[in-house]
């Protein structure tokens, strides 16, 4: 009897194995999305750095068709407003077609994550740009990390083209889907001017004093912006 049970178990096992074998296991990356672009050719070397990050860092790309590409090596060129990815399979740096990108994120050398969205900016210097999202909400705070290539004094790193240097010329924008874009200077007065009324302005001055916060750069401006949001002040522009 025991022998018969064993035989039955073996037969059932065989049936199960043959059923599993009939199914086909697809390779892990059988349907990976494809990134479209052209070969990236670097510019001549000048003083300064046109890139957000010197080396390729891991990031994500969201394409216009809703596809998300994760764990891809990215670099952002501030000067040309271009996204470059490194294709390790073919060891090639590829300039991603801007038309195909909806948004992307990457980390800088310090590990801070930067999230960019592609927006069509109207008004001064219109066109499609990658704008970094500094703060989300009903009114979004964005920055266009523009870098200009300008002539400069002929002193710099040996071996480099010394007459030109990359210089930051960041533009900060407020964005709302109803009102569109508006440039904003990262300063105390410009932030105060966007508040609803004088009571709110007084309140913000008080909060800034209380937090010992002086708006001198992007970091302090962002801290002040977050205080505005956390105190539920209404931004008007």
């Amino acid at each position, binding site marked *: 009897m025991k022998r018969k049970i064993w035989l039955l178990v073996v037969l059932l096992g065989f049936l199960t194995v043959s059923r599993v074998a009939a199914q086909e296991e*697809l390779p892990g990356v059988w349907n990976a999305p*494809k990134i479209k672009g052209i*070969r990236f050719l670097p510019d001549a070397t000048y003083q300064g750095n046109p890139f957000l990050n010197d080396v390729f860092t891991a990031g994500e790309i969201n394409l216009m068709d809703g596809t998300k590409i994760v764990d891809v090596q990215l670099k952002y060129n501030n000067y040309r407003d271009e996204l470059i990815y490194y294709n390790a399979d073919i060891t090639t740096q590829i300039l991603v077609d801007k038309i195909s990108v909806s948004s992307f994120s990457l980390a800088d050398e310090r590990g801070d994550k930067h999230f960019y969205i592609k927006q069509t900016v109207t008004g001064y210097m219109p066109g499609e740009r990658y704008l970094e999202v500094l703060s989300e909400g009903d009114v979004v705070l964005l920055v266009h990390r523009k870098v200009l290539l300008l002539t400069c004094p002929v002193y710099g790193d040996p071996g480099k083209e010394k007459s030109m240097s990359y210089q930051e010329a960041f533009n900060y924008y407020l964005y709302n889907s109803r009102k569109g874009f508006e440039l904003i200077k990262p300063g105390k007065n410009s932030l105060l001017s966007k508040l609803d009324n004088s009571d709110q302005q007084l309140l913000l001055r008080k909060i800034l004093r209380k937090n010992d916060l002086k708006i001198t750069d992007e970091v302090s401006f962002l801290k002040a912006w977050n205080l505005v949001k956390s105190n539920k002040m209404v931004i008007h522009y």
Partner: protein
Amino acid sequence: MLLVALSGKAQGKECFGLFTDRDLYTSGETILLKAFTPSSVQGGILTIDLFNAKGEMITTVPLQITDHQADGFINLNDTLSSGSYLLRVFSQTSVTQTVRELYILNRFTGVSENGPSFRPDGAVEGPDFVSTEISMAGIEKNYQRRGKGHLSIHLPASLVAQAEGPLCLYVAQTVPEYHAQTLVLNHKPKFTVNAGNEGIILSGTVTDPVTAKPFKNGVITLAVPDSIPRFNYYTTGANGRFYFQLKDYHGRISLVLQGYDALSNRPLKITLDRKENLLPALPPFRNGIFPPELRKMAAKNVEAFNFGRIFKQQQITVQMAPISRTDAYPFYGVPERVIYPKLFVDLNNFEEISRELLQGIKFRDNNHLPTFQILNAQRNSYFTEQPLVLLNGVPVRNMNDIKDLGSREIDRIETSQYERYFGNLRFSGVVAIYAPKFDYEGLKESDDLMKLTLDAVQPRAIFNPAPEDQAVEPDLRMLLLWKPSVNPEPTIGVDFQTSDMRGKFKVFIGGKRKDGKLFFNEQFFEVK
């Protein structure tokens, strides 16, 4: 347990529910379908196949699953012979399949007088239906022809809460003498569950034409010719297998598959997995007798259908699929130049076109060996490799196919003089020729080039209600109402209008509960 495994029964497993508007059809008619999927099938695509009693596949329909259900239609060919047919519903990852019987009459021959009637043997079990307390109020026993009917369907609160997604509701002719069987069978999914079910998966094997062994690192390209062509590729592993997911495709599409070695560029042999190899073991058929009442009814239906054809009454309207954003620009990027040769003087062949109109592009036909050269816009030197040449979106590997194209045949030429990348594929420039009159069917099929036409996801169909003013034309509708997606509510109002057809009709409502159990209720009435 062993017997169950061997017999193909799918006991205890959650199964597909499959409903059709009727059980008896005439060739040339349209079958309307509603399918409910098991909970394990999460979105994606399900497939409904139509087989004849010999097990030959007649047609296949992929449907988009929404809310664990899908609805669609099958247009029956005029030439189908009279007999029993089977509809089968399954998905690429499901472990069960549901088979539903129906009878189709040839519209020219009807039911032969002495012909046998094959029916599936009832040895295999059908899906489990749970009893519900659905009631129908206001339904009359008899209706006049061209009369208006109104009834209310009451669903118990527990069922409203438990129903998974919309319900299927219809009012249609029924044949009491013919009870179509529904059977549930085991199904060996082609792919494992983790493969996903997002779209139709086209698969096959690529082999070395010399050794006939699976080829590693072969590149298989898939092109869908269109005004904005779609393209994809797959690089094979050691087993030579390739897979393409056809997502966001609707209706009938033409495809071209090509295979080559990425290193040497030599052609490779493509063998596609044929669906015929995956046909299910059909349930056994038994010989039966066609009841005389059914024969009479069938003859009447055939006559009515043939007569109705004169008036070209359409019961459904097919909605065009929405245009996807993925089609916004071609896979080879936004072209730097677009040339319309028709706007210039007549040029007899492509060499003349390239000489006169294409800046930085050399096409020369020397000794019947045409060559392309493209100036690299980034480096200002000519690429050493041939560019990607597309004709209506299909990659052209033999330049003799395009050398005779003159400016009259070509609508536009799009060019990109950059080193372009699509995933890991590199193109040394792109020349895309759009010649609407060029018959891409003329591209010769070979071991390395395969042309296919297949049905992608079926577009949605809308049921057309009875026309308001039809005093002159006969109203020969056998389907009075078809609502495949009715929201489950405590009371559902149903309005219909009877046609000129006499006979028995039924009001049907069915659906699926969240626990996977199917339910339905039906009430009959007669039109006199």
